[in-house]
């Protein structure tokens, strides 16, 4: 195994476009980085913003959120709702100083198997540049009475 940092990436995708698009990547045997793991949602409208945060909090270095192009939503408007949600969410995260470069939003249709591979590879490459998102994960530790305790405990855990 190489020592290069391999980012963990979770992809949140809709069933009808991107999931199927990623199936097409497979049927076309286009290779891409194995860092990404896909979770299937019925629609981008279903993707709760909290799930993205949970991914980060629990060790993901980046996420991909992808669904049908505008006007192509299987449910007519789920992606439009999602788009608004991401517009506000992304802005809020940025205001909080959360690294929004680690969230890749994409529209990948059921026909864009090659694009899916590109999206994954680009994301993984960017995350390799950015490195692990430990400062975020570190903030999950509950606040003990004394920060020194925390440090000692963490060191003990990692020993």
């Amino acid at each position, binding site marked *: 195994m190489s020592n290069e940092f391999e980012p963990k990436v979770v992809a949140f995708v809709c069933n009808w476009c991107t999931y*199927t698009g990623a199936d097409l990547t497979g049927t076309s045997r286009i290779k891409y980085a194995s860092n990404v793991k*896909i979770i299937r949602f019925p629609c981008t*409208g279903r993707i709760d913003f909290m799930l993205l945060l949970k991914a980060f909090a629990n060790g993901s270095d980046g996420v991909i959120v992808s669904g049908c192009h505008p006007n192509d939503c299987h449910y007519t408007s789920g992606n439009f709702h999602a788009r608004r949600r991401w517009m506000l969410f992304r802005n809020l995260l940025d205001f909080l100083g959360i690294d929004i470069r680690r969230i890749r939003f994409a529209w990948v249709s059921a026909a864009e198997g090659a694009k899916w591979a590109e999206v994954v590879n680009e994301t993984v490459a960017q995350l390799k540049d950015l490195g692990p998102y430990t400062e975020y994960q570190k903030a999950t530790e509950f606040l003990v009475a004394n920060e020194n305790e925390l440090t000692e405990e963490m060191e003990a855990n990692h020993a």
Partner: protein
Amino acid sequence: MSKIGVFVCHCGENISATVDCESVANTASQIEGVAFATDYKYMCSEPGQMRIKDAIREKGLDGVVVAACSPRMHEPTFRKTCAEAGLNPFLCEMSNIREHCSWVHEKSGETTDKAISLVRMLVEKVKRNKPLNPIKVPITKKALVIGGGIAGIQAALDIAGAGQKVILVERDPSIGGHMSQLSETFPTLDCSQCILTPRMVDIAQHPNITLYAYAELEKLEGFIGNFKATIRLKAKSVDHKTCTGCGACMTKCPSKKIPSEFNEGLGMRTAIYTPFPQAVPNKPIIDRVNCRYYTTGKCKVCEKICPTGAIQFDREDEFITEDIGAVVLATGFNVLKPDFFPEYGYGKYADVITGLQFERLASASGPTMGVIRRPSDGKIPQKVVFIACAGSRDPAKGIPYCSKICCMYTAKHAMLYQHKVHEGESYVFYMDIRAGGKNYEEFVRRAIEEDGAHYIRGRVARIYEKDGKMVVKGVDTLLGAQQVEIEADMVVLATAGVANGGAEDLAQKMHVSYDPYKFFAEAHPKLKPVETNTAGIYLCGACQAPKDIPDTVSMASGAAAKVIGLFSNAELTREPTIAVVNRIATHDVSTCVGCFLCETACPYQAIEHEEIKNRNGEVIKTVARVNPGLCQGCGTCVSFCRSKSIDIQGFSNEQMFAEVMSLVAEY
């Protein structure tokens, strides 16, 4: 603790070439809650499926994960396998280790590790799966068709012909719509009335069809298979049960100078009238706005003359309700009044008319018996200018879209004119000629080449009157923007097709979405052209966008086929992957606070209001309820709900949360 079975498929070598399937199965067997894990060459084969069934029975599995190809490929297969072994099919999930893993990564430890992660993710999901049962919705097998033009007529006849009951509601006193006004139809030049009127008669006579003419939809409640329609029967002032349709009243009515809607104002009608001689129903109604009795209180000539005593001045609007299983919207279109082109002088000059008015002039049943006579003096025009795109494709003054039918009917008008006035000259100003359709291009060419219509590519700037002639000033862009001036006897404007009056109201009444031009929106522009986004409501014809008769009729038959398909089932079976609002012990039976912001988030109008009452029957809270007949399971409401009171079966908050955690948390 869960007893989950994991079945890892080699897919021949499709998976096993890059993923160590045995290792995946071994590792999976160590996951908390996994009671059994195995791998096999072809899981979807008969022996593969047998392994799953045997394991379910022998190990008493309460969940199954098949790690194989995409669920979009074999999910139905394996769910059926589970069901056959007595396990609820919705306790089976697929882990996609082929398309999303073995086919896209090289053979390596990482690829196997990823496959294990994907399996773990689905194991964590399945632990939280719940047995689900398909949702059954009863269906009232009666269709409501709104609009009695050719679209509504075709849809009603098709549905009725398949043995189902139809209620046809028409706003005007007669069915027939715009098609009944047309002279001859492109590209074949059949007489419009000759082909339409038999169908109108069929409507009147079909045992499965109930026609309510001069009626409008008042209210539509309910959902697919279970609508309740309230229909307003507008007061006709004539009892159609006793009226024989003899027409005596119409000949004696003293109010004779009312512009006829059917003749686009080019002819007159009486206050008690049928719109045209072949009307269905062919019995008159009283136009109360113009009737002397209603306006002055004196007259009642029709009452005196009526041999059957059918006149009933005191009738009021009546309301009936009907249980309906499906609705077809066929409310058609209208033409834009050309007021917004003041430089064309429509309304100012009697001899500037619309295309629909020209249809009436050219029609054998029209005010001139089919002789082309100009409105001002009744003379036969020797030179006629036709202006295409009078309003269409003009974002500045008119509408930005193409009305689609104008190119063809303008060519037809020029042709009809040339056929009727052999020595006459016709000029057509056009922007582009759009003649896509079977025999359409040939038709236009015929108008130009055989019938000698002069086609000029360019726009008309202005029309004014000079010595009883209409001077048309325009440019010919093919001749280098050369000025063109034609002294015509008559000008015909191909005005844009627009949404019918009241379309927006109706759409809101029915919760059907519509586009910025008030045309009703189809559920999907390609794959669901006759559905609306409200299940059970279909659409056809020009209420969706301007279209010609062949397109309208095929769309109507398409909508009818959807209704017939729906009615072919005793009840409607829906996938249970739908949203549900929680009902719990606390917080007055649901954590839903009834803000109903989810109502607009739902693309399907599936959110209803439900009152929660205490033991004394007092309403303590109004909460949301998802109508299982309407919900399509997109889950937009789920991620929108602040208190997480709505969840979606099959993609629940707990399931999705567990999937995320399994991928990133350390195990």
